[in-house]
């Protein structure tokens, strides 16, 4: 008996050791087992596809998980159509919300297991992925079927490194101020044309017991986005951060300090709701959407959601350009937000098919977006009469603002490296809860920048 037990024991241990050995050779990243790289099964299909008998799965990581979002419907529509046309190809959707996706991709990138198609952000946020050589260049692909010409002039530059296009954007937005017309009427105020007037409007709204501006500052980029627009004005034009990177300016430049002072005057006037740093992006936006706040500074991507909200009924919401600060700056220069973009893994097992699919996807994107009433702020040109298609007055206003854009700046974290960006975000967030001296804020930025150079 003992002998048998011993044998059994040894065999069992061997089996277990073998089965567990797999985890030792794996990577150190967190337990991410949901996405495996595209796998091929060699079973033949019996539906007689002429191109190939090989069954192919393409993993498509995306940030459209919300089934009420028009983009989600659009995604499914295009994918379903493609799968119908190509029975041997399965598109596996990995839909995550933005933050989850960012985290997941970083984890996957660390172990070189990038999904066939994934989402990246423009410029500086893309740089580390490019440096690690993870994406396939799309230069040839965008020439096919005239895809390149559907994109707006210059937009692809934000996704181009060393002459290669590495990603195709789903959007191209600008920052605007949305305002609630009935609340403005109630307080007897008009749309401000200068920043000083805006601070005044804030005070008058506040006196009537109305929350002047909503913001979701727990997410910290929201406040930074607004601050950068002030800086775009006090600097008299775009390019402040670029000048810093090029060594022509420092954060202790008067333009930066002036922006901090102006920004603080807005906060000190009581512009934002109470407890502002505990509101996340959605909670902040909801204040405006439910008519509890009079103004909302955000990228034009928010248009669709506001349109269909309680506050947006009966054309009650209007938009205006961010005004001049101390007479400086040009309101036609906007905070630009080239959208998140689709990139293709260089190590994809089915590179050709993946590129083919993405080409098809992007070609159909504008039309489907237009039909789903989601075409405000997309990166491609859309042929179609928006008014006749039933887009609201506010959407038309935003579309008209697009025509007046004369350049501008990108968000801080799209221009600076992640380390500096995090320091900046927390420094600006602090202004919402504590009054600080502009030169201290400038110094904080400069130190962080030099440390992370």
């Amino acid at each position: 008996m003992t002998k048998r037990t011993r044998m059994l024991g040894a065999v069992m241990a061997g089996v277990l050791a073998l089965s567990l050995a797999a985890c030792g050779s794996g990577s150190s990243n967190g337990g991410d087992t949901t996405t495996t790289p595209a796998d091929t099964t060699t079973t033949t299909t019996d539906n007689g596809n002429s191109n190939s008998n090989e069954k192919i799965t393409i993993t498509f990581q995306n940030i459209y998980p919300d089934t009420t979002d028009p983009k989600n419907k659009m995604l499914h529509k295009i994918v379903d159509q493609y799968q119908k046309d190509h029975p041997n190809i399965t598109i596996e959707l990995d839909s995550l919300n933005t933050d989850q996706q960012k985290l997941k991709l970083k984890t996957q990138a660390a172990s070189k297991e990038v999904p066939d198609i994934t989402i990246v952000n423009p410029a500086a946020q893309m740089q580390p992925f490019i440096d690690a050589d993870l994406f396939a260049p799309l230069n040839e692909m965008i020439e096919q079927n005239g895809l390149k010409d559907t994109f707006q002039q210059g937009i692809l530059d934000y996704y181009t490194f060393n002459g290669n296009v590495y990603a195709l954007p789903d959007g191209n937005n600008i920052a605007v101020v949305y305002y609630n017309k009935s609340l403005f009427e109630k307080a007897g105020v008009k749309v401000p044309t200068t920043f000083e007037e805006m601070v005044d409007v804030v005070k008058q709204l506040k006196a009537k017991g109305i929350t002047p501006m909503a913001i979701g500052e727990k997410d910290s980029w929201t406040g930074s986005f607004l601050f950068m627009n002030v800086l775009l004005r006090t600097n008299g034009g775009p390019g402040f951060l670029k000048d810093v990177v090029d060594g022509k300016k420092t954060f202790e430049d008067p333009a930066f300090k002036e922006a901090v002072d102006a920004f603080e005057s807005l906060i000190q006037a009581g512009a934002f709701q109470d407890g502002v740093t505990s509101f996340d992006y959605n909670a902040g936006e909801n204040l405006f959407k439910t008519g509890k706040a009079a103004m909302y500074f955000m990228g034009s991507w928010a248009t669709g959601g506001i349109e269909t909200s309680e506050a947006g009924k009966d054309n009650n919401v209007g938009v205006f350009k961010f005004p001049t600060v101390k007479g400086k700056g040009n309101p036609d220069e906007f905070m630009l937000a080239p959208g998140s973009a689709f990139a293709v893994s260089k190590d994809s097992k089915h590179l050709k098919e993946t590129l083919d699919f993405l080409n098809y996807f992007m070609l159909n994107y504008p039309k489907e977006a237009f039909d789903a009433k989601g075409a405000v702020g997309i990166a491609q040109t859309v042929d179609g009469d928006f008014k006749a298609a039933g887009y609201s007055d506010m959407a038309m206003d935003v579309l008209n603002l697009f025509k007046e854009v004369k350049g501008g700046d990108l968000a801080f974290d799209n221009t600076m490296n992640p380390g500096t960006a995090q320091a900046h975000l927390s420094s600006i967030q602090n202004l919402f809860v504590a009054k600080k001296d502009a030169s201290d804020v400038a110094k904080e930025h400069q130190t962080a920048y030099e440390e992370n150079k």
Partner: protein
Amino acid sequence: MAYGRGRHTPPFVVDERDVKEAEALNVLKVSGWVIAAFVLPCLLLYVCLVFIPILVSIYSGMLDWNGIGASKFIGFANYTKMFTNDSVFWPALGRTFLLAGFSMLVQVPIALFVAILISRYVRRPNFLVSSYFLPVILSVVIIGQLWKTIYNPASMGGMINQILIGLGLDSWMHSWLTEPKVAIFAVILVSLWQYLGYHILIQFTGIQNIPADIYEAAKIDGAEGFKADRYITLPMIVPIFKISVVLSFIGSLQSFDLIMVMTGGGPAHATDVISSHMYNMSFLSMKYGYGSAIATFLVFVCLLATLIINFLFTRLDKRYS
């Protein structure tokens, strides 16, 4: 037979009695190899899931690495920076210990007190203990959102502030989660509230395991009520109490989710603890190597703290046995 005592000895301390007991338990007289074979699966799991990742972290902690691209070995530079040139690190560490302190010195004793009261006065205690335990099984996200609404400013319908207004204590009102000085305490309170039931359960079970005949004997000798608690319950609960303290300490060091949900470490790092700082560094600032250094530091603090707590309790244990 040392069984009565042995049962209560937690697995953290290997004492000779246990070894002898283990030998005595080997009644089947199976060889050491067989025992090894049966221990192996668990051991391998432990090595793969705990030990190797720790080693990898220690190694990554010595890299200048953004988590994606090429890495550079820089020795202990990350640690030097962490200890001497990181304005967030020390305050975050302080807040972590603040949380641990509150947890060990306030939460666990309260839990013990409640457990004693329940076991003495409540005839069918299970329902009560289960209700105290309820917050533990709720998702942290739900708890965080719940308390966020409770803490909201009065203008947003926050319960605490409205009660304060109702009581005429307007001056006590705070924007609980957004005032840098108050926010960390607001978060700590929620954490204490959530895990109180957990420690009540542990200690209640411990009290239940004390043989009733000891109390009966004491009764004959004239020790009843709190006197019996002082001389019987407290000494006999020490091993269980220790488990509670160790768990609460390590739990506090690792606390992360609640803070992420409620404040995200803000405003401006005012509620950052060591693990949220580690997360920010690794994934938002993309300093994966530096984040790993913080993680390694956390592992060693946990180990050290467990050793210290063990040492203190061994002395306490000796005094009472």
